[in-house]
C-alpha cells in the first residue's frame, strides 16, 4: 500500500511540471509589454526597460521559466502589484475560503449525486427514476450564476432565511452559526451542476453493474434487494463513480468562481477575475498554478481511495 502511494506521488511530478509549463506558456503569450501594463502608458522607456530587467523579462524564455520554477519551489510566487502583497500570501488566504465553499459543495454533491443515481437505477423507468432524471437535467442545464441570483431573490430577499451575500455578517459575531448561514446557499448552488453530472454517471454505472453475474449471485443467495442495491451494486459501481467524483471536484473548485461573484464570497475565483480585469498577471499565474497543483494532489488522493476500494488495482 505504501509502495502504491509512493508510486503515485512520483508519477504526479511530471504532471505538476507539465502544469507549470502550460501556465507559463499561456502567460508568455500575453501580447504587449507586461512592464508597460504595470507602469501604465505614461511610463518613460527607461523605466520600462529597468522594470523589464528587474522582472527578468529580458532573458530567453527557457531561462525565465527555470527561474520562475525555482522561485515557485521556494514558495516565492512573486508580488501582486495591484494588492502590493506577496502573491502566495494572498492566494493562501483566498484559497482557504474557496476550499471551505468547494469542499462543502463537494460533500453535498457526492452524497446527493450518488444516492440519486443509485435510486434512479434501482427504480429504472419508475416515477422516481423519471423525477430524478428530470431534476438532474434541470440541474445540469441551469447556469449556476443565474441559479444563485434566483436563490438570493427567493431565500434571502423574499423569505429572509439566509443572508444575501458575504462570508461573515458585517456587524455581529463571527461564530459557526453565522458561517453556516452564509455558506448554505452558495454551497448548495455550487453543488447543483456537479450533483447532476454525478447522478447521471452513477445511474449508468449502477445499471451496468446490476446486469453483472455477481448481482444475480447475491439475489440467488437471498440477499434483500436493499442489500443488493446498496451493498453489492453500489460498492462495485463506486469503482467507476470515484474517478468521476475526482473530475467533479475540479469542476466544483473552479466553478466556484461564479458562485463567489454572485454571493460576494471572498475566494480565490473572485480574486482571479479581479486580477484578470486589472491585468495583474503574477497574481493570476500564481493563483492558477497553486489551485491546479492542489487539484493534482486531490486526484492523487482519489486514486488512493480507489485502490482502497478495489483490491485488484492495489499492486
Amino acid at each position, binding site marked *: 500500500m505504501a509502495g502504491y502511494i509512493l508510486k503515485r506521488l512520483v508519477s504526479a511530478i511530471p504532471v505538476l511540471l507539465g502544469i507549470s509549463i502550460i501556465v507559463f506558456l499561456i502567460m508568455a503569450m500575453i501580447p504587449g509589454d507586461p512592464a508597460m501594463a504595470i507602469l501604465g502608458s505614461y511610463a518613460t522607456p527607461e523605466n520600462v526597460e529597468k522594470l523589464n530587467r528587474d522582472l527578468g523579462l529580458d532573458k530567453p524564455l527557457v531561462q525565465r521559466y527555470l527561474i520562475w520554477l525555482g522561485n515557485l519551489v521556494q514558495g516565492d510566487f512573486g508580488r501582486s502589484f495591484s494588492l502590493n502583497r506577496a502573491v502566495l500570501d494572498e492566494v493562501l488566504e483566498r484559497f482557504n475560503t474557496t476550499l471551505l465553499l468547494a469542499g462543502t459543495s463537494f460533500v453535498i454533491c457526492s452524497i446527493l449525486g450518488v444516492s440519486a443515481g443509485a435510486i434512479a437505477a434501482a427504480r429504472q423507468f419508475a416515477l422516481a427514476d423519471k423525477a430524478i432524471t428530470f431534476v438532474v437535467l434541470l440541474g445540469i442545464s441551469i447556469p449556476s450564476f443565474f441559479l444563485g441570483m434566483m436563490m438570493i431573490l427567493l431565500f434571502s430577499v423574499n423569505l429572509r432565511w439566509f443572508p444575501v451575500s458575504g462570508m461573515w455578517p458585517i456587524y455581529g459575531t463571527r461564530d459557526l452559526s453565522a458561517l453556516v448561514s452564509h455558506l448554505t446557499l452558495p454551497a448548495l448552488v455550487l453543488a447543483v451542476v456537479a450533483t447532476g453530472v454525478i447522478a447521471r454517471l452513477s445511474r449508468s454505472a449502477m445499471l451496468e453493474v446490476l446486469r453483472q453475474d455477481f448481482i444475480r449471485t447475491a439475489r440467488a443467495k437471498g440477499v434483500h434487494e436493499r442489500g443488493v442495491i446498496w451493498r453489492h451494486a453500489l460498492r462495485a459501481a463506486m469503482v467507476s463513480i470515484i474517478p468521476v467524483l475526482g473530475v467533479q471536484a475540479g469542476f466544483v473548485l473552479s466553478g466556484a*468562481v461564479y458562485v463567489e461573484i454572485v454571493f460576494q464570497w471572498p475566494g480565490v475565483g473572485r480574486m482571479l477575475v479581479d486580477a484578470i480585469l486589472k491585468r495583474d498577471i503574477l497574481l493570476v499565474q500564481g493563483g492558477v498554478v497553486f489551485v491546479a497543483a492542489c487539484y493534482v494532489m486531490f486526484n492523487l488522493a482519489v486514486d488512493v481511495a480507489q485502490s482502497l476500494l478495489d483490491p485488484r488495482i492495489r499492486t
Partner: protein
Amino acid sequence: MNFLGLLARNRLALLGLVVVLMITVLALLTPLLPLADPDVTNTANRFKRPFEDGAILGTDHLGRDLLSRLFWGSRLSLAVGFASALVAATIGATIGIIAGFHGGWTDNVIMRGVDMLMAFPYILLALAIVAALGPGLMNALIAVAAVNIPFFARNIRGVTVGIAHREFVDAARLSGMGNTRIILTEVLPNVIPVIIIAMSTTVGWMILETAGLSFLGLGSQPPQADLGSMLGEARSALITNPHTSVVPGAMILIIVISINLLGDGIRDALDPRLKSGALSRPMPRTLVRRGEPSAGKGSSALLALSGLETQFHANSRVYRAVSGVDLVVRPGECVGIIGESGSGKSVTALSVMGLVASPPGVITAGSAHFSGQDLIGAEYGTLRRLRGDRVAYVFQDPLSTLHPLYTVGEQLVEAVRVHHPMPKVRAREHAVGLLHSVRFPNAKERFDSYPHELSGGMRQRVGIAMALANDPDLIIADEPTTALDVTVQARILTLLRELQRERGLAIIFITHDFGVIAQLCDRVAVMYAGRIVEEGPTDAILKSPAHPYTARLMACVPELGQERRRLTAIPGLPPVLDDLPDGCAFAERCHRATDACRVGNIALAGLATERVVRCIDPEFRAAGTA
C-alpha cells in the same frame, strides 16, 4: 430502425429539437424583425416593467429594450456556443485521429499533453487563457474551445484506435492508399457518429461556459451583449428589478435544456448498445405474465415443473427460450439437464427462483411447485426467503459470479446471516466450517482472500460452500464445471457427489457434457430448442438413446481408449428461438426426418418405464409397441 425514426420516437428529444430549431430560426431572422435598436440607451425609460409603454419585456438599467436585447443576445450566445463547439470538435478530433491512427510515440506524446491539460480544473484553464489574451468575446470563444479540445481528442482517439486495427483499414493499406486518404475515406466516416455524440452532449455546456465568462465581464464587452453579459449587467439591480435578470437567465436555461434534451436523444439514437435495450437492469424477480396456473402434482416431488414457458421480449420480438417444460425432482435425487448452448437449460433452472433477467425475460406459463408451493408468481418476499436457504444456486464462472470487491469470507458470512441472523463471530466459524466441508485447503488463512486471488477450482469451491451455507434441500448447479480445466472438474464433481450423499441433497445439474452426466446424475433430461426431447434414467439413456438428437449429442463426446471411434459433429445449427418451426425443432438436422416430422405438435410419449421421448420415429422402440 433508422436514426431519425429513433430520434422521433423519443418525445423529449423531439421537443428539444423543435425548441432549438425555433430559437435558431428566430436568431437567424433577428436582423429582419421589427425590433427596437438593442444598443440605444434612454435613461429616462430605465427599468420599465414588462408590458409597460409598449416594451413587451420592459427595459434595462440604461433604458434599452429588453426584448430586442434578448433576441440579439441569444443570437450572439448561440453563435459563439456553436462556433466554439465546432472549433473544439474539429481540432480535438484531428488530434485524436492522428494520435489514434499513428499510435506509437506520436500517440504517447500527444496523449501526455492532453492528460496535462485535463489535469487542470476546467474553468481555471479558461480563465488563464482569457487572462493572457485579454477580455473579449472572441477570446472567450477561443478559451472555451481550447479547454474542450482535450475532451474531444481523448474520446476520438479511443474510437480511432479501435478502428485503426480493423480489417477494412488493413485492406485499404494493402491496396496502396496513403495514410491521409485512409483517414479521410475509411476512418473518418466511422468516427463521425462519435464526434456528433460528443458535440451534442457538450455544446450546451459550451454555451453555458461562454455565457459564464461574459457574466464575469471577461467575454463580450459593452455595448454588445450576449445573454451572459446581460445577466452580469443586470446583477446589480437584482433585488430592485429582478425582471432584467430573469429574462436573459431563463433564456439561457431554455436554450441549454433543449440542447441537452436533443443531445441525449442523439446519443441514445446513435449508441447501438441502447437500441437493444441492453442497458435496462434486471428486476429482483422475473416478470410473470401467465394465465391460469396449472395445478400442482406429484406430492412426493421436491420440485415439480409443469408446462413452464419462459420468453425473452426484446424489440417487439419474442424469443421462446423455454416452451413447455415438465420436470420432477425427488428429494435426494440428482437430475441432469443436458443440451447445446441456447437450448433453454439455464433459463429453465433460473426460472424456478425468478432469477431470469427481466427485462427482457418473462415467464408466460406453467408452474414450479417446491414442496407443494408454486414459486412462479410467488411474492418477491417469499422467493427471497427460499433463495439460498432451501434452494441454492451454483453458477458457471466463479470469477464473474463472486463479488470482486468482497473477500470470500465476507461473502460466505453474508450468505449465512441473511437467512439466519447471528453474531459475526459465529457466522465466521460456520463459514470456515463450510470451507472445510468443500475440502478448501488453508480455509482459515484464505478466508480473507479476494476472489481474484484464488484459482478457478478454489473459487468454485467457494461457490459451492456458499450454496451449502444454509443446508438447502435443492442445489441448482448451472454448468458449475464448464469454466474449469479437466482435472479440477473431476475433483469438483467428486465433491458434489459426496456432498449429495452426505447431506441427502437434491441436485439439478446443468451441463452440455454427457461424461459429467454419466458420473453424477440419476436421471437426465435432454433439451433442444426450449423443450425436453428425451428424459429417463441415466443408465438407460446412455445405453440406448431414443431421440436422434440424444444419439448425436452422445456421439460428440470423445471417450478414452476408443481412439478409432469417429467423433461426429451435428450438422447445421439449432433453430432461431424467435421463429421456431412447426413439428420437431430438430427435423432440419435429423437424418431420420420425414415430412411427418415437420407438422403439428409432437408430444412427449412414453417409451419404457420412466422413459419418455419427443419423436415419432425414435432410434428404437420399446418391446411390444409397433
